[in-house]
Structures are given as structure tokens and as C-alpha cells.
């Protein structure tokens, strides 16, 4: 029995050792993840919006779902094509999941909907991290009642705090986006 069990584990180790690429091992930096999000951009411009207190509160109200907007200074990254026309904007959101932090890059498209979410840092144990497949369920969502764990977003069994944190970050990014209007000049 011992020999058979050990053989099974050994075979598993060998199969595992030759399998799959790394996701958890080496996180990407801001520059790298931006380059992944906008491979065809002629440039990605770092911009900063300075919100008045009224604007900050407006964003917090719009975010709802318990998503606090605590910053008056918002840095975002506007990607433009060769003609200088915007193709998307990325926001970086840092927040606490359980007791440790997570940083997400949330990309918003010209239709003001989420186009992409990347986990840039996840400090909690990896079993609590949202899978790429789950994150994809948020892509395409706008700032409305469907972007909610009570709406179209399914909870994650055993990692509901992560699901809540990602939903709140997404709503916060979209609410700030609505206040900042980074595509306004192009429209």
C-alpha cells in the first residue's frame, strides 16, 4: 500500500512538473500589465485628475455597494492610437481583501464598460484569489445594478471576500471614470 501510494504521488509530481505556465509566481509591474492591456497603443499617457470634494462624493455615491472612494487624486493611464484617438483607459485599485491587500488593473473601454481586469498583486493565500475565468464574468459590465454579487456576478464559494473586493473595486473604477470623463475631449 505504501509503495503504491508513493508511486502515485511521484507520477503526479512528474506530471505536474512538466505542466503549465506560471501565474502566481511572478506578478507583472504596472508598465508590463499596461503593455499587455494595450498592445496596439501608440502611447499610454499617465494622467492625474484632481477631484473636488463634491466630485469625490459624487463618485462614491455612484459606486455604491459599500465601495468607498477615499482619494481626491486619481492617476489613470490613457491609451491612444497613432492618430491620438483614445482606445481605452486603465485604473489601478489597491484595496484590502481579508487582512491583506490586492491591486487590480481595471481597463475601461470607449463604451464605458470594463474591458479587462488583471490581478497585479494578491497578498492573501492563493486559494482565495479569483480565477481568470471568474474575472472574465465582470468584463463587459457597466456601472449598473448588474455589476453586483446580487446581480449578474456570481459569488466565489469559499472566497466571497475576494468576490466582494473585486466587485467594489470595479464599481469604484467605473464611478471615478464617470466623474473624470477621460474620453471627453475625443467625443
Amino acid at each position, binding site marked *: *500500500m505504501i509503495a503504491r501510494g508513493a508511486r502515485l504521488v511521484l507520477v503526479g509530481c512528474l506530471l505536474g512538473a512538466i505542466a503549465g505556465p506560471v501565474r502566481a509566481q511572478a*506578478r507583472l509591474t504596472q*508598465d508590463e500589465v499596461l503593455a499587455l492591456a494595450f498592445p496596439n497603443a501608440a502611447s499610454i499617457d499617465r494622467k492625474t485628475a484632481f477631484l473636488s470634494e463634491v466630485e469625490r462624493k459624487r463618485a462614491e455615491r455612484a459606486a455604491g455597494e459599500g465601495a468607498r472612494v477615499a482619494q481626491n487624486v486619481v492617476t489613470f493611464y490613457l491609451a491612444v492610437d497613432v492618430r491620438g484617438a483614445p482606445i481605452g483607459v486603465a485604473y489601478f485599485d489597491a484595496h484590502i481583501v481579508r*487582512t491583506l491587500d490586492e491591486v487590480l488593473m481595471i481597463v475601461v473601454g470607449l463604451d464605458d464598460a470594463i474591458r479587462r481586469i488583471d490581478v497585479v498583486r494578491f497578498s492573501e*493565500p*492563493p486559494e482565495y484569489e479569483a480565477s481568470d475565468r471568474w474575472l472574465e464574468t465582470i468584463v463587459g459590465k457597466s456601472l449598473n445594478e448588474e455589476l453586483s454579487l446580487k446581480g449578474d456576478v*456570481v459569488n466565489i464559494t469559499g472566497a466571497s471576500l475576494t468576490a466582494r473586493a473585486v466587485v467594489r473595486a470595479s464599481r469604484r473604477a467605473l464611478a471615478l471614470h464617470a466623474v473624470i470623463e477621460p474620453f471627453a475631449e475625443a467625443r
Partner: protein
Amino acid sequence: MIRQPMMLVVLLACVSFSAARSQQSDSARLAELEKQVEALTRELERLRLGEDVAVSVDTSVLGFAPAASKVYRIARGVSLGGYGEVLYERFADTRQDGAPSGRTDQLDALRAVLYVGYKFDDRWLFNSEIEVEHAATGQAGSVSMEFAYVDFRPSDAFGLRAGLVLIPMGIVNELHEPTTFMTTERPETERRIIPTTWREGGVGIFGEAGSFSYRAFLVNGLDGAGGGSANAGGFSASGLRGGRQKGSKAVVEDLSVVGRVDFEAQPGLRVGASGYVGESGQNNPTGGVGGTIGARTILTEGHVDWLFKGLSLRGLAALAFVDDVAELNAFRGLTGNESIGERMHGWYVEGSYDVLRSATTNHQLRPVVRFEQVNTQSRVPSGFSADPANDLDVLTFGAVWKPITNLIFKADYQVRSNGARTESDQLNLAVGYVF
């Protein structure tokens, strides 16, 4: 007459020269201010996101190229978490057959748990769960390590785990925080047949690839005979629970293998199965013939867990077989209907729905219902009989309220019945937290 225009020209030239100098000075100051604002916003961003994220690609660490130095930039450190639950049970005065139940109502600080982990880097981490059960070790309580392991995770597809590990079987054994199951008490099937919280010492592999995830471990076997250095109780007529050694000076004369595969058909829908095989005799002697008890134990289960909109459905079926039960019975002095089951089975289905899903509130209010059947003596060896009291049906219905994700309040009623008509119903109230 000529001198006046000349003076005017000279004066104008002086003024424009002075204005130009002033303009140059203003634009320089403006550029300096812009530079300062840029520096401040970058500093702010670095503080908010952390240096490992906000670092520029042209930065390298300790002389390595940027890509090679990524592993040194990850966040490290201690992680803390926890959960707990307090349970009140009020038992019916009478049993199914009308006789007094004799059970006293109780309120129990069932468990308070602290997670402590340490992330050495993104490949190596330590994780542990320390549990205080029943509040006071001086009375009915105890303090246990529910798990304590080291992970090496070079990729998502493959990781190694070693230490005191949770046995990857069923739904509740690995996900046993009170906010993850909707009834006050864990299912009987996942207590008697899959003995939650089941942990043993061992080593194994885990990972995920696409929609599949897996775990496989080599662990110390259960102690079916009981009484070894771990002081396990041994298997009994009510199931495998007493065979757990919990990593406490566990006897390792027999090893076991356990494996699990889950398939996520879509986000929220998980289907999986697991199996466990190993001998549980732990080198204890058979009566009279000089050999040792084998007691091969095979445990299998299949489960499904589905979250859709406000609906939550889950179900599980488990089947267990134990060999050499007559020898285990003899070793343990079990006779008649006290026999350990040669075969055990159990299953349950559970559903709940958030009736506040359409309301403009983050609160959840979920009516919940679960039905289960479990029989820990569905087959016993010849010369023994099954106790119909171990053929149990439980219907649980009630409701939970989650004001926030981290808190849950539960109330339910259990209609319990067994073949011997000795069960009594009970009302349960519980509060649970997780952080």
C-alpha cells in the same frame, strides 16, 4: 523733437525685454511646478499601490534584469484571519417513539479559529489554522491545529504541500467557515462518513489547469482500531469519525492515498469527486492467529455546488467500505449491533435563495432547506447486526441572515428520525463570523 520718439523706443524696448524675461521666468516656474506635481502624484501612486507594482520596467533589483528580479519584488509577510461560531441547541422533550428524549438544551461557543500564514515569497508559503473548540480546555473544550503546512507553488498547474493537511474530500471539510454553509450544523454525512474537520499529516501535490483543479496527498492512515499514540477512538457503529489521528503523534504503520478532482463548468458551478484508500489497522494484532489487522478503508464521494443569481444548490453522496471489520470489532470488544459498518453511505441535497436579491440592500436573507440520509451500518459482517438507530434521516429547514459578507445569523429546525425511532427534533440558533 527727435529725442522724444527715441526715448519712447528705448523705453518700449526696455519694457518688452523685461516682459520677455518675466515670461521666461513664469514658464520656468510653471515647468518646475508641473515637475513637482508629477513627482508628488507618482509618490502618491507608489504609496497606494506599493513599490513592487509601481516600479518602472527599467528598474532592476540586486543587479538582476527586471524579469529575473520579479520574485524579489513581491509582497511578503504575515497573514491573519479567522472565524468562529456560537450555537444554541434546543432539543424536543420527547423522541420519535414518545419516550422522553433526556437531552438538555445547550449553548456552545463551538469554535473560534485563528488563521496564521506567512508568505516567504510568491512560491513558498506557510499556512495554519489554530482552533479552540468548546471555549475552555478545562471543561469540554480543546485546542487543535486544524492544518499547518508549507506550500511550494512554482506554477498554477503544480504545487507541493507538506505538513498537517486538510483531507481534500467533500464540500465542507475544506470549506468549513460558518459563512460558507447555510445551516447551523454541518451535514451528518460530512461528520460521520467524511469526518470533518479531517486532517492528517502528509505530503502531496495540488494545482489547477483551465477549468480543472486537483489535489492528491499521501497521508498517515486512519486508526480504525483506536488507542494508538494519537489516542484516537477508532471506528465505531456511528462511522469513521473516531479514526482521525489529527496529527497528534499519529501512528504511521499504514499510509493512505487521497485524491480529488473538481471541474468548474462555469463560474459558480463546480462538480467534483474524490477518493481515499488505505489500511486503517495500524499494525494492531488480530485475535489469536498472530497476524495484524489490515482494515483497508475505501471512501469515495461525488459533489456538486452551484451558485446562480440568488440561488445556491449543493449536493453530495458518499460511500465507504471497511475490510476486516470482524477483526476490528474483536480488537475493540464490539458485539451485536455495536459493529463497525462494512459499508456506509450518506447523501444530502441543500438549497437556499436570497429573497432580498432584488432589494436595494447588501443584506442577504436566505430560506434554506436540506434533506439527508446517512447509514453508517448499511452492511455489517455476519454474526453482527445493524442498529437501526444508525440509519438516520434529517430534514433541516430555516433561514440565514447575512447583514454583511463576514457575518451570518442562522436559525433552523431539524426533523430527525431513525429506524429505531429514538431521535428527537431540535431547534438551532447560531451566529458566525469570518474575517
